[in-house]
Structures are given as C-alpha cells and as structure tokens.
C-alpha cells in the first residue's frame, strides 16, 4: 500500500503521536517549564503566544478536523472571549481572574446563538454564514464607540499583580492551555467525539444509527467557541489591550492556516502547527516584514500540493518508513 493511502486511511488519532502520548506530554511539559529560564523575554513572549495560538487552533480543529465543519468566522469567538474579559475589567471593575473565567462563557453564548443557525448549513454555506456572523460581530465592535471603544480598542487590560512578570504569565498561560487541551482531548476521545467523527465521515449514516446530527454539531460549535474564547481572554491580558482586528476576517484564517500546517487529522496537529507558524512568522517577519504574507501563501500552496496532512502527516509518514 502506498504511503499516501496509508496516511489517508489512518484512523484518528495518528499512532506515532498518540500511543506514547503520556510520555511525550510529560517530557514536553518538563521542557516547557524549564526552558523560559534560559531565554530572553522576547522568546518568553513568543512561547506565550504559541500556547495561545495552539489553544485557539485546537479549539478550531474540534470543528474542522473532528467535525468536518469549516468556519470562516472563528475570530468572532476569539474576540468575544477577549472583549468579554476586557469589558468586565473596564466596565464592571472585575478583577482579572473572574473576568478571564467569564470570557469563554461570553464566547460560548455567542457560539450558541450564531451556531444555532450556522449548523443548519453544510460545506461552503456553513463557512459563509459563519463569516457573515463574524463580520457582524466585527462591525458591532468597530462601530460601538461608547461601549467597545471602536477602533481605539480598550487599553490597560493587565493581569493580576502576581502574574505581572512575563515568566509568571507564561506559566499561567501554559497551565490554562494545558487544561484546555486536556479538556479538548477528553472531548474528542469521548463517545461524543466519536459521534462527531462519524458525522464527519457520513452524516446520513450517522443519522440512521441514531445520532442527532445537528445537536452534536451545535454542541461542537459551542465547545469550540468556548475554548476559542478562552484563548481570546488569555490573549487580552497578554496583550494588555483589545482591538477590533481580533474579530476581523484575516484573524479567522489564522487557526485555519495553523491547523493545516500542523495537520488537521491529528490532535497534535494544531500544536505542531502553532509552533511552526509562530516561529516562521517571527523570523520571517522580523527580517522581511513585507514578504511574510508571500512566504505564508507559498507555504500554504506547497502544503496543499505536497503534504496535505501537514507536519503530523509527515511525522506519520516518517514513522511508517521506519517500521518498514
């Protein structure tokens, strides 16, 4: 059997990354805890951003990789989480932690409201309606000066005193992201996750065996929105401010690119993708800021033509060659 077919038919999750997951997770965790002490603040910030992007992309991949639903408007839920937390701090005088905890619920509420309509559609129409709702969210944020600050954004969204230092906030983000990823992993390995995959493979057959397709899809949408919102809230306190571009449609393509780069049919895909994406972005855009989109575009085209399963697919291919 050709490797192409092998990779195409591998059941989820992929073996190399998943079988020895615990061991890898422990090693990786230890590495991530120790490493910031050897790095400059710049790289600590980079690692923090990687963790946030990884969580956002993993939340997005619950829909795309596991549910087969492509959203073009996920920036909306990231932004709802960020703005939810920021507004609670600014307008209601909440302390950081409760505001951060509330952010994802704001995003989930938005996902429930919009998702109710979006999951009725499929494929391109699904993507378009999610884009439409995201543009509405963007416009509301952008135009509602008295409440959201419009394009001036909201400034001074800083973390609590004990999380002020870059390393402390990095550990905090790392812990929250790890919890989020663990929750997402539990979701995709649960009966719910398997039902979702069944729907992705064949919605009609899933319905015949008694899976309530739309309800599962809506739940997946809300959960994905929730964790996207969590990433957004983490980002708000990391950045110290929130701006309407968080909801702009460019932002919606970020998790898409990350997931595609990493590989959408593996749980580890978004994580690998986030690392690769952020590294590339940092190094390319610091040297040739103008060419960054060009490089990104060229990589996307190359990934699709050559390695449609992303980094995780390449790893699986490598493992398969070694076993042979």
């Amino acid at each position, binding site marked *: 059997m050709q490797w192409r077919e092998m990779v195409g038919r591998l059941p989820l999750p992929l073996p190399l990354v998943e079988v020895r997951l615990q061991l890898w997770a422990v090693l990786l965790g230890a590495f991530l805890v120790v490493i910031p002490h050897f790095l400059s603040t710049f790289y600590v910030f980079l690692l923090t951003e990687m963790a946030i992007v990884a969580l956002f992309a993993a939340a997005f991949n619950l829909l795309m990789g596991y549910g087969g639903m492509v959203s073009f408007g996920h920036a909306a839920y990231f932004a709802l989480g960020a703005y939810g937390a920021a507004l609670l701090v600014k307008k209601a005088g909440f302390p950081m932690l409760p505001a951060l905890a509330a952010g994802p619920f704001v995003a989930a509420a938005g996902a429930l409201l919009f998702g109710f309509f979006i999951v009725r559609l499929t494929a*391109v129409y699904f993507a378009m309606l999610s884009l*439409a709702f995201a543009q509405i969210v963007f416009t509301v944020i952008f135009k509602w000066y008295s409440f959201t600050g419009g394009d001036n954004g909201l400034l001074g969204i800083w973390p609590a005193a004990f999380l002020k230092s870059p390393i402390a906030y990095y550990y905090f983000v790392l812990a929250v992201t790890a919890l989020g990823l663990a929750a997402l992993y539990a979701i995709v390995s649960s009966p719910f996750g398997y039902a979702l995959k069944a729907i992705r493979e064949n919605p009609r057959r899933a319905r015949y065996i008694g899976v309530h397709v739309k309800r599962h899809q809506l739940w997946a949408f809300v959960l994905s929105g929730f964790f996207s919102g969590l990433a957004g809230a983490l980002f708000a306190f990391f950045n110290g401010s929130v701006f309407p571009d968080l909801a702009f449609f460019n932002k919606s393509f970020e998790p898409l690119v990350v997931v595609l780069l990493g590989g959408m049919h593996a749980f580890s895909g978004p994580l690998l993708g986030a690392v690769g994406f952020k590294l590339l972005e940092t190094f390319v855009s610091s040297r040739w800021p*103008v*060419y960054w*989109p060009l490089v990104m575009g060229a990589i996307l085209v190359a990934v699709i033509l050559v390695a449609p399963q992303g980094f995780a697919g390449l790893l699986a291919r490598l493992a398969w060659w070694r076993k042979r």
Partner: protein
Amino acid sequence: MAFLQQLFPWITNGPLILVQVMSGLSVGMFLFLVSAGMSLIFGVTRIVNLAHGAFYMVAAYLMSSLVSLFPGHPLWFWVALLVSSLAVAALGGLIEVTLLRRIYRREHLLQLVLTFGLILIIGTLVLMVWGPENRTVPRPTALAGSLDIFGQPFPTYYLLVLILGPLIALALGLVFYRTRWGMLVRAATVDRDMLGALGVDVSRLFTQVFILGSWLAGLGGALAAPVVAVALGMDAEVLINAFVVVVIGGLGSFAGSLISALLVGQLQSFGILIFPAISIVLLFALMAVVLIVRPWGLLGRPEE
C-alpha cells in the same frame, strides 16, 4: 407619513431618491461583473475562488499604470481597460493550469485554502511592484464631469457602467443560452462527470471557464479603478461583497448573481441613507437571512 418624514428627511426628495437608485444600480453593476465571474467559476469547477478579489485588484493596479502612459489620449483609456482585463484573464488561466487543476478532486477545504494562499501571494506581489501608496486613476476626459439630474449631480462615469453592465450581462446570457459552448458550461454546472463521460474535454472547458471568470473580475477591477481608491486591501473588500452577492443569488446561478447584485447595490445605496453607521451589517444580515431561509440562495439549487 409625517413620522416617516421626520425620521428620513429625504423621503419626499424625489430627485435624490432617483439619484440614489441610479448610483445603487451602478454599484450593482460593478458587483455583478465581479460576482458573475466568481459564480461562473464555482458553478463549473466547484471551487470557491477566494483569489477572485485579488484578480480584481491586479486589474485596477494595472489600469493605474497603463492609463498614465498616455494621459491625454482619448482612446487610450479603452485600450488600457481591455489590456488590463485580458492580462488578468491570462493570469487566471495560468493559475488554473498550474495549480487549481491539480486539486479539483480534493476536499473543498483544501481548495479554499489554496486560493486563500493565492490571495496572500498576489497581495504581496502587488505591494512589491506598486508600493504601499494608494493610486488614483483619472477618468477619461469625456466622462470626467457629472450630469445634472433634477438638480442632483450624478457622475457621468457611472453612466458608462450603467450602459456597459447590462450589455455584458446580455452578452453573457447570449453566450450561455444560445451557443454550444454555453450549453456545455450549463451542462457542466449540472453534472460535470456525465459531461466528461459524453466525450467532452472537461479539463479544457474548466480552463476556458476560469479564464472567462477571471476576465470578468479583471474587467470589474479595471472599470472600478477610476471611482475607487486603488489600494491594498481592496481585494478583501470586493471579495466579501462579491461573496455576499453570490451567496444571496445562489452559487453557480448566473441570473441569481444579476438579481442579487442589483439588490445589494440598492441596499448599499439606501443603507447609507437609512442607517449610516451600520449599513455593512445590513448586507450581512440580508445574507444571513437568505442563508437561513433558503440556504442555496435565491436562484441556486439545493446541494445533494
């Protein structure tokens, strides 16, 4: 009525309403050119070409360079219009043959992301060639002024679009419904596999359709260049608008995009009068309502 008049003071101003309708029509015609190409490409190849807006942008930038070559010449504007739209058609053909052809049988998602990658690439190339400053394209001298319509000014250039748009719609209609090639295109929209089984060279048809669709995007961009700011980011703006039009009209439906473009043109024209702050939300709200009530659009077919 008094209440309405208080709310919308322009409601009894007939000439103003007439001018708004006309400018809405011309906006609709621009939208029609771009979205007809997008819808055509989708109908036949089943690819939602996200780079369609980038094609439009390239044509506008080409126009800005070409027109300034011989500024005063009365005929040069039209030559430039033709050259820049044809150049974009050639670009589209090149992209179809080298890239898109390889992914027709793959997942929709990968096709979407590939064309999104093209947006990034084309956008950066445009930035490298033309730089970050906005560019302006002068209108041809004969169409530079404005008409007086019952005391309201109306730019003469828009008249060109009001005449050219329906002509192109008519020409496309004739091609689709009165020629053998048009029949093949319509057949491919319904069932391309069957068409291939009947001995038609589907691959060549795809390339031809892609070139025609890209040419329409190019024509839209070149025509719009004198009335919009030729700037980076115009690709995203027109892409979103064209998307909305195509989705409302029904993906792959030619008549649908015409009706929907005219509708959206009016909505934009009057939306600015009625709800200046949130006119863009109206657009997306309309799209959301259409998608919820009739997901396949006004004149599209439900997907099986």
